[in-house]
């Protein structure tokens, strides 16, 4: 089995996130609720409120209590891994295994909530709806949810990474035409940051947002209407 280079960046991202969470936890424990929040505490509180509002809009209070922490950790992980390209790491989400696991977690959650809401009998019945032969269609629709969720994230981030490397090569060959300092890729230093802003920051934030919006609304679909 060959060693995949993204594994190194996955480990780095995981350690960074764990350290960050420990730090935030320590800050939040020291925080006095009567004072005005500031710095990282304010940021975390605003982020938590935003996700909580999003989850409560689509689901109910009972589900939101358990779903919000999961969504928060997923969005933090996807965001950190999408912007890893800025720190010259290989983005973990451009490895299909990572996005497949994230998509599979969402699919398992959908099934768990569907099971909880309908009970054993109703859950088994939901596979054979509206008629018994439709079981094949139902199985296919569950697989396609998994595939579309994971491939969307994977395709977007991978295409961004490949485009960036192609652009770097092109800019490198252009700057070779400049005498004396040509080998330093001078043109790349000027033009690449703008593209990094789009491909890494913007599409990274956008994809994390889309992933959690889809997760929340797929789970909300399984719950009864309030």
């Amino acid at each position, binding site marked *: 089995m060959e060693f995949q280079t993204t594994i190194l960046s996955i480990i780095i991202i995981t350690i960074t996130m764990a350290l960050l969470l420990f730090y935030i936890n320590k800050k939040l424990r020291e925080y006095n609720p009567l004072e005005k929040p500031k710095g990282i505490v304010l940021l975390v509180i605003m982020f938590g409120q935003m996700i909580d509002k999003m989850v409560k809009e689509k689901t109910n209070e009972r589900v939101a209590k358990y779903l919000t922490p999961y969504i928060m950790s997923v969005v933090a992980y996807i965001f950190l891994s999408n912007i890893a390209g800025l720190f010259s790491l290989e983005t973990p989400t451009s490895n299909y295994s990572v996005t497949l696991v994230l998509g599979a977690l969402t699919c398992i959650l959908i099934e768990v909530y569907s099971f909880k809401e309908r009970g054993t009998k109703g859950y088994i019945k939901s596979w054979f709806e509206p008629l018994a032969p439709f079981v094949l269609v139902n199985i296919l629709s569950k697989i396609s949810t998994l595939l*579309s969720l994971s*491939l969307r994230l994977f395709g977007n981030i991978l*295409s961004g990474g490949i485009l960036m490397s192609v652009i770097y090569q092109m800019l490198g060959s252009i700057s070779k035409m400049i005498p004396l300092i040509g080998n330093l890729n001078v043109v790349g230093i000027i033009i690449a940051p703008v593209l990094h802003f789009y491909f890494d920051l913007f599409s990274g934030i956008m994809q994390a947002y889309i992933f959690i919006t889809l997760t929340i*609304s797929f789970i909300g679909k399984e719950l009864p209407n309030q």
Partner: protein
Amino acid sequence: MERALLGFAAALCVCGGCVTGIMEGKVAVQAVESIGKNPDAADKIQSMAIIGAAISETCAIYCLLVAFLIIFILGA
């Protein structure tokens, strides 16, 4: 010769993205129009529009993935 054909096939694959681009623009246009008509429902319309755009984008991403597979796996 073979490599040229593979490149041509990959380029043809990505053509599927054209229609997706037009249609995703349509999603945005409709969302803006309906927010203009009914500004109170902006939050709901925004999330619906993003979900719609994301789901219709899947088609384009499949095209792109097939193109990548052709270039990097068949062409390698």
